[in-house]
């Protein structure tokens, strides 16, 4: 019998059959988890709220609540920025927004096509869900494997989650409604296309995953040179504060600079390792500089980055011999 893994997982989901693949002890431990995040928004700036995730890697314990999602009061409805890792998150987020603001949600803006940022879309199907055209294309291509991976990483929290694709193209520039100057920036580097929001009224940059703060940047879809160019653009906007995709709110541009320094170190380190002829498993064991010791999820995230980036880097150092 030939089944690809995705259809296998798909077929199992929604039933308890997936549970059968796990040892019973683990399964009963999962059954005891209360599927509630306790999401509470906090204000990052006047009219801008965020739900701050933990600076961890995905786990069943944290339910994938490792991401920041936001909403902005435009004066003519709320703009929601990203919807979290699953249906439960999206629904809880929607309820918390309703409690926090009498204004209706006007639209959702998705930062990029990574599953912890859009799998809560099911709670927002009554409004337009906007994403950049390259983000929409990437999501169409990878939604299946990404959802499979999330089932593996956060398990029961994914119950009932389906991918809801974006409904409309997001364009760069000032949002055409609302009473604040809220600008959409369409950049790239963390993935093929990364959207950020810059609120000119308060100087707040909602950076999506172009910026991480005290949490190691992730690189499964990254193009580092293009990411660095995007960071230059963001820094040139001189934000007063930055709401990153992962990590807390920071004043000024420290988070942009930390993300840049880490990416520059990563690229230089892997380039040097390949030039020295290190095998990939050796490159994974290189030391992390003291400068980054307070950054969460290291060295784990570094090791993942070697897997993502080293094959192309080492290939470039090996000349043809036939």
């Amino acid at each position, binding site marked *: 019998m030939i089944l690809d893994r995705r259809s296998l997982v798909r077929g199992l989901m929604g039933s308890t059959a997936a549970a059968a693949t796990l040892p019973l002890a683990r399964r009963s431990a999962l059954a005891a988890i209360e599927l509630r995040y306790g999401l509470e928004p906090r204000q990052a700036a006047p009219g801008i709220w965020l739900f701050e995730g933990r600076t961890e890697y995905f786990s069943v314990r944290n339910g994938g609540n490792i991401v920041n999602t936001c909403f902005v009061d435009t004066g003519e409805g709320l703009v929601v920025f990203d919807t979290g890792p699953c249906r439960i998150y999206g629904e809880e987020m929607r309820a918390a927004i309703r409690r926090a603001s009498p204004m209706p949600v006007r639209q959702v803006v998705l930062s990029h096509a990574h599953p912890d940022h859009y799998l809560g879309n099911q709670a927002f199907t009554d409004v337009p869900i906007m994403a950049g055209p390259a983000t929409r294309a990437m999501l169409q291509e990878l939604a299946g494997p990404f959802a499979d991976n999330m089932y593996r990483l956060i398990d029961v929290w994914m119950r009932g989650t389906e991918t809801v694709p974006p409904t409309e193209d997001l364009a760069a520039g000032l949002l055409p409604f609302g009473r604040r100057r809220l600008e959409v920036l369409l950049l790239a580097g963390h993935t093929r296309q990364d959207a950020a929001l810059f609120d000119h009224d308060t100087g707040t940059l909602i950076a999506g995953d172009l910026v991480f703060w005290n949490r190691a940047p992730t690189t499964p879809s990254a193009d580092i040179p293009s990411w660095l160019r995007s960071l230059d653009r963001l820094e040139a906007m001189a934000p007063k504060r930055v709401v990153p995709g992962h990590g807390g709110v920071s004043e000024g541009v420290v988070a942009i600079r930390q993300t840049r320094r880490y990416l520059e170190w990563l690229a230089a380190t892997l380039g040097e390792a390949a030039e020295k002829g290190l*095998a990939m498993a050796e490159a994974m064991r290189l030391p992390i500089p003291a400068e980054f010791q307070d950054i969460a999820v290291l060295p784990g995230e570094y090791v993942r980055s070697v*897997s993502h980036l080293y094959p192309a880097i*080492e290939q470039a*150092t*090996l*000349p*043809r*011999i036939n």
Partner: protein
Amino acid sequence: MRRMMEVLALLVAIAPLAVAEEADPLASGLWDRARAELFGNAPVVFDERVVLLAPAVAEDNLNVPVVADARALGEVEVMVLFADANPILRIATLELSRAEPFIGLSLKMEQGGPVRAAARTPDGVWHVGGVNVAAAGGGCTAPASVHAAADWAQHLGELWGRAWLEPDGAQRVRLRAYHPMDTGLAFGHPAFFIDQLDVTDDAGALLARLRPGEPVSQHPVITLRLRPEAGTRSVRVRGRDSDSNLLEGSLPLAWRTGAPDGDRRTGSKE
């Protein structure tokens, strides 16, 4: 007296072999199968001098990088890399002539479990070391992504390589081959993989013979440490796959640290 001490030390060293075989330090339920299939009745010991470097978690099941290093054992005749839980147990075998017991490569993992290296010393004992690698699975039964490229067959057998002089005088050689390395377990793709790769010096003497198995990753990148005779200018790589396609190339050795390209230019004039 001194002779007696040596004999005593030797007795202490071999004593564990005489008793019942020790338990698998990785507590794998599949160890017995691996042991029987790969080593038969030969003596096997778990030995921390056989170091296996691998990530604790496989980020990409199709490309799990490992380095196996048994140099601490001294003389080694052959190394075998294997993953207990893979449907095809053996990853690769390295037969050493003038090479060190050291190899880097990437493998496909069908599910998480131990990845190990066994090194046979001249006394016939297999020394085994390894680590557990967690993996989501599906690595061996997924078709090679190269089949999505229309022109993959035209690139088949392309080789890349480079040598570095290590501070201790060894030649670190890295090789890359363009090959799908199909396991035969993915629907519609029969087994098709490089099954032999010889590295010889310019006089034709064998330095190392690698016998990759199906689990080696697509477009394999192999890292070796060779000990050719001083003055050897280049090494030849000659391999074949399971369909008897030949792979052939040669690369200049580096006799000055960090200057492989200078040597390469010299080599190409000959």
